[in-house]
């Protein structure tokens, strides 16, 4: 099958890459661009291990043809760390809460959590479970993953009303 050239933005950088028209975005990101955080799991849209952000939306790349990514903005875990190596708030929360065991499902989960953090909302634990329900983890039992996502969303979007008013009083 013919080769074509994809132009898109990956982790903030403009990218041009040749691809086979039969490829899904998972193939292109993992095999051609070397972004190995994008995991090949079930390949039928059930496990969520290949989740990345496409124009800010957490999407399974195993069911997304590379052709559709033309002109889109794609983000993977590789793009989250600051240039000096500082972890992103979601990554740090996963470390702090011991949310990682074998780690295979984690990059996908982090990208879904990233979408949640950027929504500007806070979430109940039930809502977090629902937002993460497109991911399968066979190690952790999810408890610490939910803890980590709760921590990250609360840290970034949580109400700081009490603290804020307390600070005002002191001032």
């Amino acid at each position: 099958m013919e080769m074509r050239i994809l132009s898109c933005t990956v982790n903030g950088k403009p990218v041009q890459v040749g691809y086979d028209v039969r490829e899904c975005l998972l193939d292109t990101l993992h095999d051609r661009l070397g972004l190995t955080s994008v995991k090949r799991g079930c390949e039928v849209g059930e496990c969520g291990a290949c989740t990345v952000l496409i124009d800010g939306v957490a999407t399974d790349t195993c069911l997304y043809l590379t052709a559709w990514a033309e002109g889109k903005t794609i983000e993977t875990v590789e793009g989250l760390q600051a240039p000096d190596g500082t972890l992103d708030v979601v990554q740090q929360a996963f470390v702090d809460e011991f949310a990682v065991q074998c780690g295979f499902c984690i990059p996908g989960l982090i990208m879904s959590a990233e979408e949640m953090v950027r929504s500007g909302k806070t979430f109940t634990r039930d809502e977090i479970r629902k937002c993460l329900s497109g991911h399968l983890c066979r190690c952790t039992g999810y408890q610490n993953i939910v803890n980590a996502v709760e921590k990250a969303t609360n840290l970034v979007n949580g109400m700081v009303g009490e603290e804020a008013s307390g600070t005002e009083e002191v001032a």
Partner: protein
Amino acid sequence: MYDIVYYHEAESVQDAVRALTEHPEARVIAGGTDVLVQIREGRFGPCELVSIHELRDELWGVTLDEDETICIGPITWFHAVNTDPICQERIPVLCDACDTPGGPQLRVSGTVGGNLCNGITSADTASTFFAFGAELVLEGPNGRRVVPIEKWYAGPGKTVREQNEVLVQIRIPKSHYEGFTGEYIKYGKRRALEIATMGCCCLVKLADDHETIEDVRFAYGVAGPNPCRSEAAENIARGKTVAEAAPLVGEAALEDLHPRDSWRASKDFREQLIKEMTKRALVEAAAKGGSTASWK
């Protein structure tokens, strides 16, 4: 890597129709959450695809016609229908149904049009579209035609859509939704990433006393080879109060519906589900219209 031997990214609906006509073996792909999974299974062998994924200008979004018909673009994601203000205000039960397929990532790839075009009885939005009596607009080489959803299905996984026709709009006229409240119940063994063992949508219009059933529709997925209604259940409920009708509708529905044994569930279990879900869907739909009846 998928076993694709021809791929065309359509630039317009007419371009897609032309490509489909030139390639009589080609399939339409929109969200890809069914077609790509089936290619992966090797179901089609080497596959020809015409993609309508990028036709957002023509096929995406929800609008309201002058006569207040709700017009849904077929490549609109489940999630986008779920969060659409027009749907939330006028047909919230469809939003609920759109919140049930797969998981969050699937709902931002899978499309409501694909959910109808796959012809599958367990499709989560199909029973709700069926209850609303949706009208499906197809565009082919000879122009457009409108198919009422009652005439859409043609056996398991089959519809009357010709190979070179594209679904271009899903229409729900005002008279089909005005005054109705609804409930969709999906029964599955888990709450996400599940295919319905049984799906039931009830739409009910109550009289001014908020208890008497003026009109009602029951539609089901997985109760037969295609989504379907139960007229027996509707007839027995009409004119009664919700509390009177609730104990009767389940048995009545079984006069019309003949589910089968499958590896997912036995016939007996599905009949039990139909009885129970018909009752609960009626009561829950009526509760949104102000009824105080209980199914317990």
